[in-house]
C-alpha cells in the first residue's frame, strides 16, 4: 500500500517512510510497559511470597497449589462458567431481537434506541443500589407485587444461594444488551436491501429471510459481540460488589472479585496474582485465536 523504500530515495520519501512508524512507536512503547510489562510483573509475582506489598521471595508453584485448594476459587470458576455463558447467550439473544424489531421501520426509534443504550453509560456504583432494592424481596419487586394484591408472588433469588448468580446475570444483561443491540443494528443497516428483495421474490418467508439470509451476514457482528461480552464477563467486578458483595455466603463470587479480595483485602498478593494469571490466560485463550483469524484474513 505505502511506498517501499528505493535505494537512494529522496529525503521526503524516506521521511514519509519513517513517520508512520515514528507515530506508532509511542503507543507501542506504552503498551509494552503498561500492559505487557505489568502482565510479566504479575506472572512473576504469582511465583513469589508477596503478601501485602510485592516481595520477591521465590516460592515456585506454591501459590497455584494453594489457589486450587481454596474452595472459594472453585466456586468462583463455576460461577464464571454459569454467569458468562448465560450472560453472553441472553445478551446476544435480546440484543439481536431488539435490533431486528427496531429495524422494522419503527416509529419512535429515535426515542427507544437511547433508552436501550443508556445503561451502558452508567456505572454500577450508580445503579447498584437501585438494582439491589429492586431485587430485594422486602422492598422491591416482590413487595410491590404483594402490595398490588398478588400475595403469592415470590422473587427472592438474590437471597437464595442457588439463584443469586442469576440476579447478577439479570443486572449484567440489563447493562450490556443495549450495546449489543447497537452492534447488531449497525450490522443490519449495513446489509444490502437488494439481496433481501431478491430473496423475497424467491418466496422466502420473513423467518426464512432472517435465518437464511440475514443472520449469516451478521457474522462479524456476532464475533464482535462475543469478544466484547466475554471480556466483560471475565472482568465483571463492580456488578457483583454492588449487588451481592459476593453473597449470600460466597455464592456469587467471581474470579475478579476473588482476585481483588486476595490481593488487597486478605494480603495474599501471591495467590491473587496467581488467580490473575489464570484469568489472563483464559482471556488469551479466547482472544488470541480470534485475533489471529481476524488479522490474518485482513492481511
Amino acid at each position, binding site marked *: 500500500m505505502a*511506498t*517501499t*523504500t*528505493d*535505494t*537512494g*530515495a*529522496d529525503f*521526503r*520519501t*524516506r521521511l*514519509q517512510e519513517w513517520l508512520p512508524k515514528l507515530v506508532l512507536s509511542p503507543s507501542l512503547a506504552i503498551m509494552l510497559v503498561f500492559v505487557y510489562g505489568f502482565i510479566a510483573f504479575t506472572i512473576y509475582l504469582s511465583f513469589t511470597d508477596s503478601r501485602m506489598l510485592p516481595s520477591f521471595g521465590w516460592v515456585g508453584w506454591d501459590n497455584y497449589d494453594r489457589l486450587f485448594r481454596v474452595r472459594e476459587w472453585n466456586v468462583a470458576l463455576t460461577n464464571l462458567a454459569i454467569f458468562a455463558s448465560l450472560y453472553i447467550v441472553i445478551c446476544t439473544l435480546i440484543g439481536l431481537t431488539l435490533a431486528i424489531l427496531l429495524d422494522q421501520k419503527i416509529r419512535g426509534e429515535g426515542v427507544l434506541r437511547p433508552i436501550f443504550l443508556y445503561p451502558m453509560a452508567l456505572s454500577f456504583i450508580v445503579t447498584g443500589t437501585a438494582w439491589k432494592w429492586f431485587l430485594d424481596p422486602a422492598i422491591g419487586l416482590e413487595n410491590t407485587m404483594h402490595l398490588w394484591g398478588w400475595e403469592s408472588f415470590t422473587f427472592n433469588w438474590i437471597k437464595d444461594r442457588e439463584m443469586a448468580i442469576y440476579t447478577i446475570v439479570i443486572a449484567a444483561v440489563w447493562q450490556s444488551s443495549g450495546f449489543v443491540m447497537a452492534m447488531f443494528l449497525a450490522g443490519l443497516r449495513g446489509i444490502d436491501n437488494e439481496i433481501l428483495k431478491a430473496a423475497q421474490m424467491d418466496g422466502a418467508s420473513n423467518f426464512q429471510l432472517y435465518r437464511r439470509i440475514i443472520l449469516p451476514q451478521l457474522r462479524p457482528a456476532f464475533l464482535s459481540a462475543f469478544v466484547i461480552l466475554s471480556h466483560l464477563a471475565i472482568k465483571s467486578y463492580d456488578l457483583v460488589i454492588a449487588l451481592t458483595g459476593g453473597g449470600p455466603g460466597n455464592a456469587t463470587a467471581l474470579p475478579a472479585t476473588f482476585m481483588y479480595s486476595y490481593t488487597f483485602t486478605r494480603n495474599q498478593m501471591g495467590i491473587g496474582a496467581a488467580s490473575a494469571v489464570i484469568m489472563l490466560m483464559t482471556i488469551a485463550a479466547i482472544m488470541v485465536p480470534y485475533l489471529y483469524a481476524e488479522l490474518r484474513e485482513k492481511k
Partner: protein
Amino acid sequence: MGFLDIDNVTKSYGAVEVLHKVDIDVQEGEFLVLVGPSGCGKSTLLNMIAGLEGITSGEIRIKDRVMNGVHPSRRNIAMVFQSYALYPNMTVGKNITFGLEMHGTPKPEREKAMKDVAQLLQIEHLLDRKPGQLSGGQRQRVAMGRALVRNPDVFLFDEPLSNLDAKLRVDMRTEIKKLHHRLGTTIVYVTHDQIEAMTLSTRIAVMFNGYVQQLGTPKEIYDTPANLFVATFMGSPAMNVLKVKLEERNGVPHAVMAGADGAERALAMPNAPAAAKAYLGREVMLGIRPEAITDPEGADRNARNIQPLANTVGVTEPAGADTFVTMTLAGKDCVARMRADADVRPGQPFDFAVNMDKAVLFDIETETRIA
C-alpha cells in the same frame, strides 16, 4: 530516449516477482494505454510511475530525471483514479486547488487556474458543491480537473471510466481524446477495456502475467498480434482461433480443417509469412478476425486473397449494423461478421468469403505469431 522512460523495471513482493523487465519509452505528447486483464500488473506499473509503489530494479525517468525514490508530489505528475478519489470533505473548488495549495502556489494564482480548468471542463457551476452531491460524470470531470490544474508533465489515468454507465463512458472517452488533442499532454492510461485502449491510444502496451506482451500502435496490435493472448484479448468479438493443419497444395500453403459436416475445407494462404514454410505438415493455430469472414458481396474490395468457404450456418445474431453468424469450423464455434442485410439463415448452407490477408498463424507450442 523518450519523455517518460520505463527502463527494465521489475517489481517484486518478497520473493515473488510481479512485473518482469518492463521496458517502454513514451514520447512527449503520446497517449500510452496499458491494457490487460486484472492482475496483469498494469496498475502496479502505473503506481510505480506515480511513485506510489517502489521500484525493485530498473529505472523510471521523466524528462531524463531519474524518478526512483522521488516522492510522488515531486514527480510533476497528476493522476486520475478509478474511484475519482475526490476528498469528500472539500468542495469541488477546494478539491481542484488542493494540490496547488500543497505546492505553495499563492491563492490568486490558484483561483485563476481553477477558473480556467473549470471552464475547460464546463464545471464552473459545480465549484461550491461537495463531491457527494455530484453525479458520476461530474465527479469524473472534477477528478480530471484536479489533474489538469497542476499542469503536469505526465498524466496518469487509472481505469477512470470503469465506474460510469455505458453511454457516459463513451462520451467521456471522446472528451478525454479531445482534451489530449487540445492540450497535447503525455498520458499513461490504464484500462482493462480493449475498446478504450484502441480508441484512445497512440500506442498500446498489452500486459499479461507481469509481462508486456506487445507494445505497438493500435493497428499493429490489432492486425499483427504478437501472440495468441494479444490476439484474443484485443478485439470484440474475439478473434477466431482454429487449430488447422498447414499443407502445401499446388506450391501454396493451405490451412486445412474440418467444416460443420466433418468434410475437409482448405483455405489457401499464398502470402503466408516465410516462416510458415517450417510448419508445413504440422498443426498450427489459425487466427481470423470475425470481420474477415463475410458474405461474398460484403468482402473487402481491396483484399488480394479472398477464399470461398462453404459451410453450414449455426446461429445468427442480428446486432443492428452487423449480423454475427456462428458456424462450426475445425470443431469449434467460429464467428463471422456480415452486413445486416446478408441473407443467412440458421441451418442453411452458405458460401462465406474469408479475407486471408488478415489471417495470422500461431505456433501451437509457444503461442507466438509465426512471422
